[in-house]
């Protein structure tokens, strides 16, 4: 029969798609790719539109910003493997360090290039519980109780999960030592070692309560909120607020622990990529725009803690006052924390036994 006709119509169809294809990339305008972590989807959607407008008003060029989201570790891996990100906006400094180290796409001292450790916004780690807090979760120690189910993503792939883990660890150190400054006091070395052993015990017990580790923060949110698994979700503050806003106020509550970690999600221009694309000036302007008042307003609107003093003041009521320690204070920076806790065979690998 008419198999020939069939084949020729297949060819014709292929050609039609061929005509459609150029419309994917017609415009001569500038394109930027921002490779980001999970919970920033909504923020960058709005921020990108604002920046395009700003850039067009300033230079006349139209700039389109493409977004890619996922667990921060996974995203960094993709950039290392060749995903051509002009800018990376990831969950923690180590992920960008990894890009510098493994693929040499930007200098090792990238974090000094922008103000505030290259972190234009901060956040912290809080708990999301179901309405009425049926399990009575008040602080970190409740998460290690037997019979409570805790949701957190996988620290191996998710930046947020690493903050979660370190926040829990820091809580025990604070409880044991009283003052976190003593962590680096040589005279208290024996006490610190004891406190670290306690912290390890505590975090082990906590992860015994984790039924599922998603690869990114958004996956965990979906697990907790949509699939209804778990009693408490250790979450980015911004992600917790967003979940409440998007999925039903009145279904969940935010619990702020007695102490938490100051999360500084950093941003960086990927030098080798922007030089290849010829997009350095716009990429740099894009990141600097995050620090402007307008950018900081958007940041605050999406529940990230702004750096800009004026904006921070205006949004103060939105965020709970909580004692925050930094990773440098307690863990001696990301490189060290990564090596001790999250590298292959590190403490997390020793602690976490998948069931």
């Amino acid at each position, binding site marked *: 029969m008419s198999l020939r006709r069939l084949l020729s119509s297949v060819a014709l169809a292929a050609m039609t798609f061929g005509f*459609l*294809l150029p419309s994917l990339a017609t415009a001569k305008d500038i394109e930027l790719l921002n490779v980001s972590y999970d919970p920033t989807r909504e923020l960058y959607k709005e921020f990108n539109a604002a920046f395009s407008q700003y850039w067009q008003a300033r230079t006349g060029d139209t700039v389109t910003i493409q*977004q890619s*989201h996922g667990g921060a570790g996974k995203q960094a891996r993709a950039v290392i493997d*060749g995903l*051509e990100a002009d800018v990376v906006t990831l969950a923690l400094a180590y992920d960008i360090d990894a890009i510098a180290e493994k*693929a040499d796409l930007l200098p090792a001292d990238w974090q000094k290039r922008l103000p505030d450790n290259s972190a234009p916004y901060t956040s912290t780690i809080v708990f999301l519980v179901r309405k009425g807090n049926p399990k009575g979760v008040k602080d970190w120690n409740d998460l290690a109780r037997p019979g409570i189910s805790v949701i957190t993503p996988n620290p191996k792939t998710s930046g947020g999960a690493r903050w979660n883990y370190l926040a829990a660890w820091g809580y025990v150190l604070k409880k044991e030592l009283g003052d976190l400054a003593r962590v680096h006091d040589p005279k208290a070395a024996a006490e610190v070692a004891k406190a670290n052993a306690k912290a390890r015990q505590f975090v082990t017990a906590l992860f015994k309560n984790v039924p599922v580790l998603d690869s990114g923060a958004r996956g965990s949110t979906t697990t907790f909120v949509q699939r209804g698994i778990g009693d408490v979700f250790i979450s980015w503050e911004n992600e917790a607020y967003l979940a409440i806003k998007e999925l039903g106020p009145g279904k969940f509550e935010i619990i702020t622990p007695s102490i938490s970690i100051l999360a500084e999600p950093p941003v960086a221009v990927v030098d080798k990529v922007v030089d290849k694309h010829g997009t350095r000036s716009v990429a740099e302007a894009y990141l600097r725009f995050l620090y402007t008042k307008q950018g900081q307003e958007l940041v605050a609107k999406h529940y990230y803690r702004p750096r800009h003093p004026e904006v921070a003041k205006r949004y103060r009521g939105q965020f709970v006052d909580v004692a925050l320690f930094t990773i440098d204070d307690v863990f001696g920076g990301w490189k060290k924390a990564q090596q001790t806790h999250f590298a292959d065979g590190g403490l997390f690998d020793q602690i976490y036994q998948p069931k």
Partner: protein
Amino acid sequence: MAAGATLQQHTPWNASREGHGIRAEIPWIKWTFVSVTLGYLGLFLAVPLAAVFTEALRKGIGAYLESFQDPAALAAIRLTLLVAAIAVPANLVFGLAAAWAIAKFNFLGKNLLTTLIDLPFAVSPVISGLIYVLLFGQQGWLGPWLSSHDVNVIFAVPGIVLATIFVTFPFVARELIPLMQEQGNEEEEAALVLGAGAWQTFWRVTLPNVKWALLYGVILCNARAMGEFGAVSVVSGHIRGKTNTMPLHVEILYNEYNFVAAFAVASLLAILAMVTLVAKTFVEWKSRQSVELLEPTTAEEV
């Protein structure tokens, strides 16, 4: 027991021929099996399918249609069509060539080739994607050379096409090999003896003999090419509006709490599945018909 039940299921068709051959008709067994089957189908096929459409239409037809106005959704649909438009013809040619080689010739390594064709069925799609990252990624074997020549494979359309071709390449060949083996070489030999050229033999004899199986393979290949998630997810880079195919876009929308749009795009894939089923049934019916028609004539000719 099970055998008895299967026999009974045939009774409506066989009753006239076999009379009351099966006397031990136990109605409850029949109904148990029928209801278990239907219940299972309902639970695992019909209900989820209905859920897709219910969720997609939750906010009305307006919101449903609006989901397709989103440039990112349109780009995902376009990319999916493009990938299928490349992967399916490529596998059609490959499948035909491979099946022909395997069915009509003897050569060294034939068994190995047959086994290799099945490889994508045996390998997890995630691994299929990872293979290409290891091969073409910046840290991979060919990555540095490719990037110095400004060629993007991974995290771009070529990578997605490659991964899709890999995952879908058994479909056409698998359909054709048994049929071509069964048909043997006689007709081709006759054509050649009667003076037909190689191409003529191919177009007039070989191809018409396998056309329905070929079409069947193409339909399945296309369905998988458009629906593939795992392998494509690894090589895509998830750039919104650029390297997201429809299945990936569904996941993104879902993760952004945009349930109506997620299920709207999912409903397109569900519709594709249903069209595939109908087309498949039609092709099966057609091929059975053509076999029935063919048999007496070939018998006469030979």
